[in-house]
């Protein structure tokens, strides 16, 4: 087997395992977060983003991160409208594209049904994409600024050599919010 296939198996399995262990494969935990009644998962996600940002940009400062792996997605109206549709679907189903697969692995039938729905969703999107590209949905926003902090392949708000420190501070802010967030808001 090729090396990248072995890496994919190890990393994909670890990712699914981690999502299960934090409760993200459980629609009740996801819905508890959205309904603001059980914010355990929200604390974990905020903390996860915090740790990931801190480790990643510390690695950048130390020259340990392959900079060409940075991959910044564009900003266009479709991000906002897509997020609205995504949010509606999340509130209805209690799954995400990744956590649904964790649910499938754990033996949930509703996760399989969600997955089939997802396949229909991407099918519909692939059919209408050609017509959407000429609409305002693909108009770029924020004059192409892709990131807050300088990375490899996108325009950044802060581009000085010390800018990775800003990312690390942002990471600590996420950790702090995760720490301060109560377990219940309702």
């Amino acid at each position, binding site marked *: 087997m090729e090396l*990248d296939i072995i890496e*994919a198996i190890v*990393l994909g*399995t670890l*990712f699914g*395992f*981690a*999502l299960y*262990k*934090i*409760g993200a*494969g459980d*629609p*009740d935990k996801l*819905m*508890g977060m*959205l309904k603001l009644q059980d914010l355990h998962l929200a604390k974990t996600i905020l*903390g*996860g*983003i*915090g740790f*990931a*940002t801190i*480790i*990643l940009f510390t690695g950048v400062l130390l020259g340990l991160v392959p900079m060409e792996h940075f*991959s*910044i*997605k564009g900003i266009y109206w479709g*991000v906002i*409208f*897509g*997020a609205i549709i*995504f949010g*509606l679907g*999340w509130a209805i189903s*209690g*799954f*995400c*594209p*990744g*956590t649904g697969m*964790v649910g499938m*692995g754990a*033996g949930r*039938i509703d996760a399989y*049904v*969600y997955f*089939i729905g997802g*396949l229909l*969703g*991407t099918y519909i*999107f*692939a059919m209408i994409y*050609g017509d*959407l590209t000429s609409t305002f949905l693909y108009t770029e926003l924020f004059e192409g*600024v892709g990131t*807050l902090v300088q*990375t490899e392949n996108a325009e950044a708000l802060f581009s000085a050599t010390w800018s990775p420190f800003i*990312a690390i501070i*942002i990471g600590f802010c996420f950790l702090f919010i995760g720490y301060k967030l109560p377990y219940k808001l309702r």
Partner: protein
Amino acid sequence: MYLNWVKGSLLLGFVFVLAFIVMKPIGVSTEYVVIDGIVEYKKHPDFINKDASSATGYRSSNAYLDKSEGKLAEHIIHPKYYGMVFVVSILLGGLLGRLTSKEASKATKQIPQFHSNTFGNKMLLRYALAFVGGVLMLIGARLAGGCTSGHMMSGIMQTSVSGYIFALVVFAVAVPTSILIYKVKEN
């Protein structure tokens, strides 16, 4: 029981950084399109063509599969690539998670509590809602260019502005909608 938030955060953050350094930022929703393509290709193989003028060697009559030099078309023809193997392996991770948890009943309880609290134990309604949610979420994810993994986690950890915007809008919509739909019936 699930991990406490500090341990869970460390594990989640570690996995996202590890995948980033080894290969690339984690994302999931792209592979749904490729799976569609693989199924479709078995029925009507004529929407993908070999084309030496494209960098991947493939083109498609479908505009979405054709973008980025026919990258998705190539994946459909050669589905054993990093992203697809990664996504399929998530199922294995979910299974391992379940097998190593004492209280496995929680994530595998077939009707979620929030559903039965509102609608009772209506299994078919749960499936219908899961299905509709799946349709909407994958349309939304493809329009936005990513999902919870690609935009929210991988995007924000790179300080990507699109990740922050995606996350804010998703929660601004999903929080009130879920509270509205899954009102607990009082009786």
